[in-house]
């Protein structure tokens, strides 16, 4: 039986046995290359569920929209499960109300090729699940990878780096698709939407754009699981993963932690150690 068939079978069983109220997964999207999230509430609807390389949105994002209806089954690949761990740590969802159907993932497609995040994926299999559907996939990437592009970027002078990044960020139209695609961005009022007082200018001036991206990253520090949903959601093709990889690297090097892996290790910026490095402080 194929993985999609196994999924449909288990989802059907869970719904007809009344274990869960809803199964959250994917179905074929209007566009060929991106599946859309699907909320199956009756056993019949589970026939529409799919799982393949087009299932690129982070499903944990949609979990927040159904957190109050009772027990929900969710079909989670590696990065989705890490986002679920972050949401559990931040007490946005309750573990008892979740039934995680884990699936191994061979990478999702973006613009006709394997997404840049998936090429260096360290967690193709879920880190947390109630049952695995089908066998786990083989893990190919041993440890954190440093991309050659990042290495080259580091060698530039500060002025050159600013030029490269500001040229990239200048294209931002401030649609906030990156925020909407991210399961970590669940604030009822985002700092960019705050209007009394208005915190950040609404223009696509380079200064406002840059500050938006820097603050977005700081909010992601110690929480971003590098699923790449924001990167794929960006209509302007801004290389958001360059920023995300960096923030993850900073947190990994400074605090020796990776977000969303261990449920008992809370996000890096919510805790501290007296002996944290402070060589940058006078």
């Amino acid at each position, binding site marked *: 039986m194929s993985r999609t068939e196994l999924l449909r079978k288990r989802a059907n069983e869970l719904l007809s046995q009344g274990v869960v109220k809803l199964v959250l997964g994917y179905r074929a999207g209007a566009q060929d290359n991106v599946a859309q999230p699907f909320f199956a509430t009756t056993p019949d609807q589970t026939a529409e569920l799919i799982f393949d390389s087009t299932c690129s949105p982070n499903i944990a994002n949609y979990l927040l929209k159904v957190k109050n209806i009772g027990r929900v089954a969710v079909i989670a690949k590696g990065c989705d499960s890490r986002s679920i761990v972050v949401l559990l740590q931040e007490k946005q969802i309750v573990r008892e109300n979740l039934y995680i159907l884990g699936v191994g993932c061979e990478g999702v497609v973006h613009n006709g090729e394997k997404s840049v995040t998936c090429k260096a994926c360290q967690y193709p299999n879920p880190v947390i699940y109630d049952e695995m559907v089908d066998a786990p996939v083989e893990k190919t990437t041993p440890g954190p990878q440093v991309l050659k592009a990042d290495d080259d970027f580091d060698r530039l*002078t*500060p*002025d*050159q*780096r*600013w*030029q490269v*990044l*500001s040229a990239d960020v200048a294209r931002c139209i401030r649609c906030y698709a990156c925020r909407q695609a991210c399961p970590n961005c669940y604030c009822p009022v985002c*700092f960019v939407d705050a209007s009394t007082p208005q*915190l950040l*200018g609404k223009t696509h*001036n380079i*200064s*406002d754009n*840059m*500050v938006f991206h*820097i*603050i977005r*990253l*700081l909010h992601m*520090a*110690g929480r971003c699981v590098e699923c790449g949903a924001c990167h794929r959601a960006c209509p302007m093709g801004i290389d958001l993963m360059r920023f995300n990889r*960096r*923030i993850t690297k*900073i*947190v990994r090097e*400074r*605090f020796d932690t990776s977000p969303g892996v261990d449920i008992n290790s809370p996000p*890096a*910026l919510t805790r*501290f*150690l*007296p002996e*944290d*490095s*402070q060589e*940058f*402080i*006078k």
Partner: protein
Amino acid sequence: MGLFFNHQLPPNWTQESIKVIITIQMADNSDFQPKIVAFLCNWCSYAGADLAGISRIHYPPSIRVIRVPCSGRVDPFFILQALQQGADGVLVSGCHPGDCHYLTGNFVARRRFAVLNDLLAFCGIEPGRVTFAWVSASEGERFAQLVKEVTEKVRQLGPNKKLIKEIPQ
């Protein structure tokens, strides 16, 4: 003097040499008085600045102090906003680790600042534009010295041109 009587321009009054002088003058940052926004914690650094004042210690008049209850109150967004509004530098100062009035405020802030510091370096904001420091209430001398150093560093860097928000005319 002979040149004057001959109704000739002295060599440094020619158009070319004046242009060179203008270029040198414009490149020279020694007249540039940077504006530095200082976020000082109420319990330590603000009192340290106060002590520097009471002790009549001279330091450059470049800082604009914003008193905050704790360095933990300093959202990185404040720092970026100061740069957006035209500050040439930002100084953030709080109690030494272990001395926080609220016990752990500066420990939490320290992690946040570490990430901000590395991220600004990555984005190409010059090192020294944003400075973090620990200054206690008894370190008036040190505070004055710190402001001197920070002002000198920002003066070398020149006016903030990167993150400043310029409205097109």
